[in-house]
């Protein structure tokens, strides 16, 4: 019996060493600054290679016009597949819902308006608020991953809330954009899988 325990301990040591080597190798291609706090129960799930690979898939969607147009670098939303400035230049406003007579929901109703290039719609159409703009436009995969995993920049979202965000009504609207607009390059199912994999395996940022 003692021998068995001793063998198990030896085996465990080997596994720990192998894990340490793998983690060391991974650190050459990912930013370790994104490592979440040490938590033994989570470390087993962490896999920087899997996580980064999944993020790079999700990133294709995040940088599509359907996502970027409402995550602009400025205070005016973008429009169309070429992400031009929105006609009429509606302003973000403090809460991200527009200003005065130019509120987003005044034209972007609860559902798409039928017809080619008519205003798309979904409940609660808005940009991120002025005090946390959550800019996607122009961000590299490294920058965006870091931003998305930081609650101070992601709308105070925990990992669980981030995962749930994949099925948010406004996120889903990207795959029902109304006539005249392309959908993101992955299906929603593939995106949600990549997004969830990225977060569950540690939420690592690709290298710079």
């Amino acid at each position, binding site marked *: 019996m003692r021998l068995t325990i001793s063998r198990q301990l030896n085996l465990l040591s080997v596994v720990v060493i192998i894990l340490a080597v793998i983690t060391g190798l991974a650190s050459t291609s990912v930013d370790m600054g994104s490592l979440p706090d040490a938590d033994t129960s989570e470390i087993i799930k962490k896999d920087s290679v899997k996580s980064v690979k999944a993020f790079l898939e999700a990133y294709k969607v995040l940088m599509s016009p359907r996502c970027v147009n409402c995550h602009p670098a400025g205070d005016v939303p973008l429009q169309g597949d070429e992400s031009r400035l929105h006609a009429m230049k509606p302003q973000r406003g403090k809460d991200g819902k527009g200003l005065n007579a130019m509120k987003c929901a005044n034209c972007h*109703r609860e559902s798409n308006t039928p017809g080619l290039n008519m205003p798309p719609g979904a409940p609660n159409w808005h940009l991120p608020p002025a005090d946390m703009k959550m800019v996607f436009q122009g961000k590299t995969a490294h920058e965006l991953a870091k931003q998305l995993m930081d609650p101070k920049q992601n709308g105070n979202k925990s990992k669980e809330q981030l995962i749930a965000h994949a099925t948010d009504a406004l996120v889903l609207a990207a795959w029902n954009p109304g006539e005249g607009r392309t959908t993101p390059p992955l299906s929603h199912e593939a995106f949600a899988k990549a997004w969830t994999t990225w977060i569950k395996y540690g939420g690592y940022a690709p290298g710079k």
Partner: protein
Amino acid sequence: MISVTINQKVYQLDADPNMPLLWAIRDLAGLTGTKYGCGVAQCGACVVHLNGEAVRACITPLRSAEGQQVVTIEGLSENNDHPLQRAWQEIDVPQCGYCHSGQIMSAAILLRDNPNPTDQDINDAMSGNICRCGTYLRIREGIKRAAEMRK
């Protein structure tokens, strides 16, 4: 039947719930002050207030106004004496006038939210209302005059 309150009067409308609110206002309720401009939410001629927000009636389905409060240019004031209406008359803001019910309805929301708007505030708030006659400078003057009248 769809029940909608327009200018504090309840209308029972026998209409498709997907009918644009603009059609219901003009053709069923007979209130023709609100104008049809582009039909695609790009010009602002059809702006009305739906529960206090300046929606574009051409793309607002009637179903979203069911049981709600709608105010059109006819209901903005009892005697056409809203400060904006008085300022519009005083300065003689319109040229052809077609877009001006929408202009005034948008401006009314601006003054409600911001009683003393700057030029930039006015530009930002009114950028969704197009005037083919180009009366923008008088519109801005009219809004400023109305703001003074409200003080």
